[in-house]
């Protein structure tokens, strides 16, 4: 285990940002801290980096007790949401900063910076100022700068949050591939569940200063520990007293005899690209279901058609009982 966080608590005045949090982050993997804004995930990252001091608890990085070390002695690379580029220094000098501080020989700095600029595809921008780069380029520069000092862990605080959707997707992809090349233990903070599911090896869901669940993307998606994780990781709808993903709702013809199905009427059909979103109004609830276009066409569905719906029988997990609040013990239900 690379980063060990034990019983960390942090308050800002009355506000409890982290409430007795303990978590182990594995070596060499890409871990996402996922949660809503103000949930404490950025605070946890900043405590690992030493940019914030925990009120109580301990932080260990690769076996080294870092609890009371200042940030410059922790050997972590930190990437900020708004890049934190050194505006008065060229891209090359930005990347070289950590090496210059460490008084490495000029030739070594030069070759290492060249390697890193090639790694982040910024060779031809070496002599520009950060202000002459686009947001995506600036963030790649910030990544190269953080990697230059060969950190034990790389920490990224909402690294793609300030970029537009298209660049964000590209960089996400690129980060995943970069990590497969460099293998440095990486922790990144995000509130975007898609980003976490796509990039991370392991996800830590944080809400209200507490950890809700830790697991691989598949585990979290298929076996959410509670109602909060279920809702946060993707769209949900309620069928009877269970929460279920809309794509796990099965629509059947009205005249069938399958057990456990509810009868309802289609009240809305919306098509978004390859996906069809359908609303079915049963006695006292509106159920959302999504189908692919082909499934939709095969079923001959129209507005006002009466159908029967149920949770797809092959979904063994992935639903939770509605009343399990985020702070109650997890009641992963099997249907």
């Amino acid at each position, binding site marked *: 285990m690379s980063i060990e966080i034990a019983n960390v608590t942090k308050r800002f005045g009355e506000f409890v940002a982290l409430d007795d949090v303990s978590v182990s982050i594995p070596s060499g993997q890409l871990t996402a801290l996922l949660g809503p804004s103000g949930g404490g995930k950025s605070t946890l990252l900043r405590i690992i980096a030493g940019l914030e001091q925990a009120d109580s608890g301990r932080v260990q990085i690769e076996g080294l007790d870092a609890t009371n070390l200042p*940030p*410059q002695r922790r050997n972590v690379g*930190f990437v900020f949401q708004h*890049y*934190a580029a050194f*505006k*008065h220094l060229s891209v090359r000098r930005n990347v070289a900063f*950590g090496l210059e501080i460490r008084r490495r020989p000029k030739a070594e700095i030069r070759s290492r910076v060249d390697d890193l600029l090639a790694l982040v595809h910024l060779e031809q921008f070496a002599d520009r100022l950060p*202000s002459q780069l686009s947001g995506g380029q600036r963030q790649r520069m910030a990544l190269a700068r953080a990697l230059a000092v060969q950190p034990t862990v790389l920490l990224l605080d909402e690294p793609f949050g300030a970029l537009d959707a298209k660049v964000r997707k590209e960089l996400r992809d690129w980060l995943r591939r970069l990590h497969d090349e460099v293998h440095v233990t990486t922790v990144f903070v995000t509130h975007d569940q898609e980003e976490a599911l796509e990039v991370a090896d392991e996800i830590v869901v944080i809400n209200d200063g507490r950890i809700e669940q830790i697991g691989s993307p598949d585990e979290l998606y298929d076996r959410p520990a509670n109602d909060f994780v279920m809702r946060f990781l993707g769209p949900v709808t309620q069928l009877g007293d269970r929460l279920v993903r809309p794509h796990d709702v099965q629509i059947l013809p009205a005249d069938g005899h399958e057990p456990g199905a509810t009868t309802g009427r289609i009240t809305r059909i919306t098509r978004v690209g390859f996906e069809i979103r359908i609303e079915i109004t049963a006695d006292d609830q509106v159920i959302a279901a999504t189908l692919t276009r082909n499934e939709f066409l095969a079923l001959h569905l129209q507005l006002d058609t009466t159908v029967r719906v149920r949770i797809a029988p092959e979904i063994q997990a992935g639903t939770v009982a509605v009343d399990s609040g985020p702070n109650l013990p997890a009641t992963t239900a099997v249907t």
Partner: protein
Amino acid sequence: MAEHSTAEAERPTAVQARPRPGPAKYLLRLVVLVYLVLLVAWPVALVGRNAFANGLTDLRGILDDPDVVHALRLTITVAVTAVVINTVFGVGISLLLVRYEFPGKRLLNALLDIPLSVSPIVVGLALVLVYGGRGGWFGPTLENVGFQVIFATPGIVLATVFVALPLVIREVVPVLQEVGDEQEQAARSLGANAIQTFRRITLPTIKWGVVYGVVLSLARSLGEFGAVKVVSGNVLGQTRTATLVVEEKYLNFDKGGAYATALLLTLVAVAAIIVVSVIRPKEQR
């Protein structure tokens, strides 16, 4: 000076939204121009014209007068010392005000505006009360160990530092607030200690704020009159500064000499401001 990533997208619309200048705009420009000419440019130009009313005789006259030369030297010594002190403390206090939270911060902030709002002559009197050699609160003690403040150069420096105190701070604080502390945090996480972070990151970022503050302080320090008049004792050839020379000559009907000295004072201040505004745009994008 800093470009905000979010503001970048909004900039083009702001340019489009600006209307073409109409007659009202031209009238407004004219009013401002006339106002500035009547109040600032024309009077200052007249000082220059009067200084050269007798050709170069007046200027040569004061430069040949050892007492005036001494006064000019004293003024420059005092101004430079005061600027150095105000710059070091100004940058320090600015960092304290922007980067740290502590009880009494608002009080300190308000206190820093006092030098700008209180009349310099009051400042002079206040300093005499504290450091005066005879009746002062602290002065006799200092004088016993052989350090005279009032009626000597330290007193003049003290008064000048006092009146120019907030100028560096008021220039540097907004710059520090605007750039935020992310760059400093990034430097720390890359291994830089506090001194390295200040030298390599903070100082270059606030450079132009500091330069502007220094120029304003210099101009203010060269021209200080009221506070200096009270604490210096105005002893010819010893503690008489250039501004006091101007007054003395003016009251003694040596108007040529007064204007010539005044011109020298003005030129140094104006030159400093011009030099800064010429080099500044080159550095900026």
